[in-house]
Structure formats: C-alpha cells, structure tokens
C-alpha cells in the first residue's frame, strides 16, 4: 500500500474538456497560446484534433526569452505577426498566457493595451494556462469559465432572457429548467448554442444569470455584476429535494410557481424502475468525469436498489453528505482517487462469481489487451477504464442533463449502455467529448 504521495497519475480517458475546448465556445474567436513548447504540445494538438487549426495559433517561449526578459515584446509582436498573417481578422482573440509569465511578472496589462491600440477592431481577452494555480481558490478551470464571458458588454436588459452561465453543453429542450422558463415566458440563453460572434455579444441583454456548476459560480457572479442583474446558483444534483428546491428558487425569481414536483418525481421513479428491470444486480461503478456530482448520483442509484460497487473520483468536495451516506449504507463500496499513482496498476475485483454475459474475476487496466470483461456497467470513462468494461455510459460533466428530466434521460442511457457494447479504447482515445474529432 502506497502512502499518501503528491505524485499524480493521468488516466488514459480523454473525454474531459481542456481550456482549448472551452475557449472554442466563443464563436469565431481565435485562440493564441503563448507558452513553452512542452505546454504548447497538448493544446495545439487538441485544436488540430477538433479540426479547428484555423482558429488556433501559438507563440513559443524559448529559454533566451526568460534570460533576456523580453516576454512582453515576444507576446505583443508574436500576436501581431499572427494577426497580420491571418486571412481574415477574427472579431475576438483569446490570448492564453502561462505560469512563466506570472512568475516573471510580465506586464500583461501593457501588452493588452498595445494590442488593443494596434487592433481596435478586435476584442482581446486575457486567458490563463496556469496549472501551478490548480490547487488555488481561483483555479484555471474557474478562471476559464469567467473569461468566456469577458467580451460581453452590458446591453439593454431584456427581462425575458435568462442566461445559463459556465456550462460546456446546452441542457436538453425537455430539461426542467427550460420547461419552467417556458412556462413563465422566458428564454434560456446558453453559450454552447450560440453560433456567431454577433449573437454572443447579445448575451449582454440577459435579465438573470443562473449557474449550476460550482466552477461556474464566479463567472456567473462576475457577469451578473457587469450586467447589473441578479446571479442565481442552482447546483446540479441527483437528489430529489435539492432539485425541487432549485426549481422553486428559480420559479420565485421568474415570477411563477413550480407545481409539478410530484409528477416530475414520478417520471424519474418510473424511469429508474424501468432501468432496474433491465440492469438488475449488475455491478455499477461511477466516476467524477461523467458528472460533477458522482456521490449524489451513486446515492440516487443505491437508494433505488442498484448495485453500486465503486466511485472513482479525485475529491469529495461539496458532497460530504452523500459520501457519508454511501459509506454507511452501501456495504463493500470502494472509493478510489483516480490520480493516485497506485491507480496505474489498479485491479478491479468483481464481487460476483459469474454472470450470464461475461466472465467474472479481475479486470486490470494494465493487461487491457487480454482481458475478458466481467459484466459491469460503468458510468463515465474513467470508471470504464479502471474496470475495463465495454458497457459504459459515455458522457462528461453532466452532458445535457438537468433535474428530473436528467434522471429520466440518464436511466435511458444506462439501459442502452448495459445492452450495447462500446469500443472502450477507441472511445477513450478521443479528446473532448462531444467535439468534432479527426481521429
């Protein structure tokens, strides 16, 4: 048993979005990363894999720039050179600086001032690839969600417009939020659904900002303050009470009532029962990649009789109640930290001796090419990798799910994943779930 160590392992499950993917949500924006070669390597190939090379450029920092102290000149002249060589001037440029700029005290304000003077027709947005800040309060993920809305300016408020802030995926049309807003005559605005820069700028008319991810709260609050409107947090959850409370809170804010709790709950119950009839006692592993609330999801499923055997997640942050409930009520459940070095040689031991669809026993990621999977349903790519099951729900960061409707949809996805085998390696190899991929 390896004691607590600060070394970290990287699971070969690539569906999670990076700051490259997130930045591309700003339509027509051009990303320019100013970093060392090692840092550029990952982002430039992410953009290429997305077939978005035409919206992506780089400026490489070399050793002499550090010793010469010309980081400002490199940034300004590098960006200028790229913009002058692009066939079409983008309306917005996201400039990503890196840890090294901040350690060297690069005068970024001056760089952006000069660039704005040189290119007055371009909105420059300062973005940050600063992994040294990963464990800080304002980590790069939270920062990136904030920067997504930086180029939005206040417009005349349209009270009909409600902006869902900070999500990478639009919620489905049948989601509880959209239905409730529709009932009150409101429209839901979402960045992932915006097609062009002109429409992006129109997001400045929002009369209310809502957010359902903890990483998006800072972004929502900042945008709301800028637009002079209210920010409302409706945390994503699989817990019935929490979902109901969120919908009531939203209803109060938009001047209506949430009065379909019993009906919505019954729909969710029915969907879970239906899934249970198919999936039965099959072991289920959940991860923190498929959803921002893996413990809430595991608890919901365990409360409905599903056989939850493992949760793969790097932290319990914000879900202590659900975590404690699982620890107390689900016998034998294991909690695994994905980044732990020991996970490199992790073996998942099935609790069953045999089942109709596959061999029982040990699934080991490190002998992945030779194993016959035990029948196990994984919810999320990392859970699938660690258990080496081809039966898995492939989704990241809650996908389009929200509320009771989200539970109905997830039940359907689980049933489908239980029946239909996926190519595990091929699926996990593709970066940025939901994005175009040239692979």
């Amino acid at each position, binding site marked *: 048993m390896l004691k607590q160590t600060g070394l970290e392992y990287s699971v070969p499950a*690539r569906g999670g979005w990076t700051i490259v993917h997130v930045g591309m949500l700003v339509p027509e924006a051009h990303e320019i990363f100013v970093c060392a070669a090692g840092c550029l390597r*990952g982002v430039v*190939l992410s953009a290429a894999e997305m077939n978005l090379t035409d919206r992506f450029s780089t400026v490489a920092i070399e050793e002499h720039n550090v010793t010469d102290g010309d980081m400002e000149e490199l940034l300004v002249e590098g960006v200028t050179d790229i913009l002058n060589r692009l066939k079409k001037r983008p309306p917005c440029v996201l400039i990503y600086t890196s840890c090294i700029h901040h350690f060297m005290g690069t005068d970024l304000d001056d760089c952006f001032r000069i660039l704005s003077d040189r290119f007055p027709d371009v909105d420059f947005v300062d973005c940050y690839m600063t992994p040294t800040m990963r464990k800080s309060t304002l980590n790069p993920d939270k920062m990136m969600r904030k920067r997504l809305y930086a180029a939005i300016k206040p417009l005349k408020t349209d009270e009909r417009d409600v902006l869902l802030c900070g999500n990478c995926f639009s919620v489905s049309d049948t989601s509880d939020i959209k239905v409730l807003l529709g009932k009150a005559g409101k429209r839901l605005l979402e960045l992932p659904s915006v097609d062009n820069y002109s429409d992006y700028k129109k997001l400045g008319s929002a009369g209310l900002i809502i957010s359902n991810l903890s990483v998006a709260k800072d972004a929502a609050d900042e945008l709301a303050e800028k637009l002079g409107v209210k920010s409302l947090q409706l945390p994503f959850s699989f817990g019935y009470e929490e979902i109901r409370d969120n919908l009531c809170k939203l209803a109060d804010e938009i001047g209506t009532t949430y009065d379909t709790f019993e009906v919505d709950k019954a729909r969710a119950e029915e969907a879970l029962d239906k899934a249970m009839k198919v999936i039965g006692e099959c072991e289920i592993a959940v991860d923190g990649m498929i959803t921002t609330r893996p413990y809430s999801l595991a608890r919901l499923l365990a409360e409905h009789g599903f056989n939850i055997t493992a949760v793969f997640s790097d932290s319990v942050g914000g879900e202590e109640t659900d975590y404690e409930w699982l620890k107390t009520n689900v016998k034998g459940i294991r909690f695994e930290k994905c980044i732990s070095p020991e996970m490199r040689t992790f073996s998942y031991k099935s609790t069953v001796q045999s089942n109709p669809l596959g061999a029982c026993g040990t699934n080991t990621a490190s002998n992945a090419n030779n194993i016959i999977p035990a029948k196990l349903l994984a919810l999320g790519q990392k859970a699938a990798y660690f258990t080496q099951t081809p039966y898995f729900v492939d989704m990241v960061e809650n996908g389009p799910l929200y509320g009771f409707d989200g539970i109905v949809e997830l039940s359907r996805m689980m049933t489908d994943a239980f029946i239909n085998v996926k190519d595990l390696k091929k699926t996990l190899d593709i970066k940025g779930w939901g994005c175009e991929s040239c692979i």
Partner: protein
Amino acid sequence: MNQARKVLSTYSSDTFGVISALYGLGGLLVMHDASGCNSTFTTHDEPRWYGDDGLVFVSAVTEEEAVMGTSGDRLAADMIEAARHFKPNFTAIASTPIPWMTGSDIDLTAAEIEDKTGIPSFGFDVSGMRSYEIGASMALLMLAKRFCNAPKSSVTGGVNILGATPLDLEDGQFEYVKAVIEGCGLNVLSSWSMKGRFEDLAKASGAEVSLVVSVTGIDTAKYLFEQYGIPYVIGLPSGPVTDKAVSTALKDAIKAKKCNSIFDGYISDRGAATVVIGEPVAARSLALEKNSVLSNDNTCNMSINGKVRVISPIVDSPNIGALLSTGDIMTASETEIEDELKKCKTIYADGLYRFVCPEGAELIKVHHRAYSGRIM
C-alpha cells in the same frame, strides 16, 4: 517572428523526449510539473500508455512550492515513497519550465532518492522549451554512462539500435529495421530503447557495431565508440536502396572499425522540387531512397545533384547540422518553411504540414509522432 506560428503544430518537447527514451525500461519516471505534462505526453506521444503499466507521473508542483522553493523536498519524499512501493529499475526526474526557471536542483533530488533507496536515480535539467531530441539524447546517454558497464566481450555480429523511440519510429518501422539487420546476418544485441529490455543495456558494450536510426542516438553512439571502440552507422532503412546501404555500411564499419553514414556522399540540390520534412536521419534516408527512384538508379550511387532535399524543422540538437548536406536546410520558422515549400512540387511530410503546402504541390504523408502525435 520565428517563434509565432499561425497554423503549424509544435514538436514534442525535451521533457517528453526524456520520458519517451526511458519508457519501457522499468523506471519510475516523473515530470516535475504542475499538471498537464502527463496528460499531454500520454495522449499524444506515448502509444504504449493505454493498457501498459509503465510508471510515469507528474510531481504536481504548486504555486506555493514554486515560490517558496520547497518543491524539491516534497518531490524527493514522494519519489522515495513511490520507489519503495514500485521497486523500479531506476528513477528519473525530467524538469519543466517552472522548476527550470526557479532553479530547482533536480540532480540533488535524484541523489537524495538514490541515497535513501539504493535505486539508481537521475535528474534531467530540461526546460520544456526545446524540442524532444535534446531530452531523448540526454536520457539515452545517461543510460549508457550508468548501465553500460559490462566488461568488453565482443558478440559476433551484435548490433545496438540507437535512437529508437516511438516519437520517431512506428512499431512496424522498428521491426523493419530489425529485419534488415538480421537479413544481413547480424543480430540485435540491444535496442535504445524502443522494444528494448533494461537488462540488455549492459550488454551493449559487447556489440560490434551500432546503428543510429535518429539524431537522438548520436551522442550515445559517440560515447560507445569512445569507450568501447564500437563504430556506428547513421541511417534508417526505408526501402530497397537504404536497406542495402545500411547492410553494406554495417559490415564495412565492423570490418574497418570506422563510423559512417549511409548518406555521406549524397549531396542534395538546393533547388530540388522534391522535399522531405522531418527528423534529419529519417528525412535524409527517405531522400536517398526517393532520389534513386527519380534518378532511375537503384544501385545506390551517390549523387552531387540529388533530386530530393531535406528540411529539418527540429533545430536544437548540435548534431543536426552535420547530418545535412548543402542543399538541405534547418529551420523551425513557419514563414521560412512556407516560402521553401512554394518552390516544391512533391512534399514528403507529416499530414499537419498540409496547411502550408502550396496549391498544386503533392503532399505525401509520412506520419511523425513527435509532430502530430496520434492524430495523423
């Protein structure tokens, strides 16, 4: 502005070169990095990662550690703990921009790990700002200096393959190289390091000749020549002409105890309309191969007006210049490459160069993992 790239990709870095060269030899490998290096390396540069149990981690250095200069202490403790758990053949630390910039003493950290565990440990003070061949070359040389210490006992026909990593060679290419060596009556004694075994490294001093298949193997080849008198041949078998050239050169080197390269006598024409872009050993070997086709001469006669020239887009290794002929160029500048390609009709290069290929020119894709990773 040579450092600005509008559309072209970037080559793998020195940090990843270190790890790629050492991977597969049973080491505990750590990139002294905040986050991101591990994912980048294992996604794009290391095809063996999925389903393998090679040990590569990041140190997860934080802002506070970097500012306070305490990352080395914690890294040593973490690696000692991990080394005791995993019992690797060796441990290695490759630096990245922030530890490099803040002057983190990774040699000292490595020495502390070795002192506490008895496991051979190395630090590589790379910056993450240079290209992969620098790091891979350092790593292979370090292996030679530390582990290739068996008493000299010559193995007849024994060949060391030097500079083989997945950054430059596909699996199939490696097997092809091996087949060419075996096809001329020689045998592979050790591979540095793709598909190699840790225990074979010590045997390398008994080889009769080394074959350098990429620029990353040159420093190690020179070391083995100086220490053990093992001559080396530079060249990558890439078809009938170069296969034969390599076979002949290996035998000549054994006989004469002299080093040579298969393209020593091939002088490319600066105005040639056919160009190969890539790692210089592979690119020059392919140029030689294609020149024989264009010249309708399969006898491997050398030419002073070669119809195929080379652009080496990796520029950091001091060994690159000597590999090129007068018609070849070495540049990492996007605009220079773009201008050069305007003169070309046929371009052999990785698929990601398609963005700078002029209209009317034919791009023949030659995958180079160090450039496009797994996506081309």
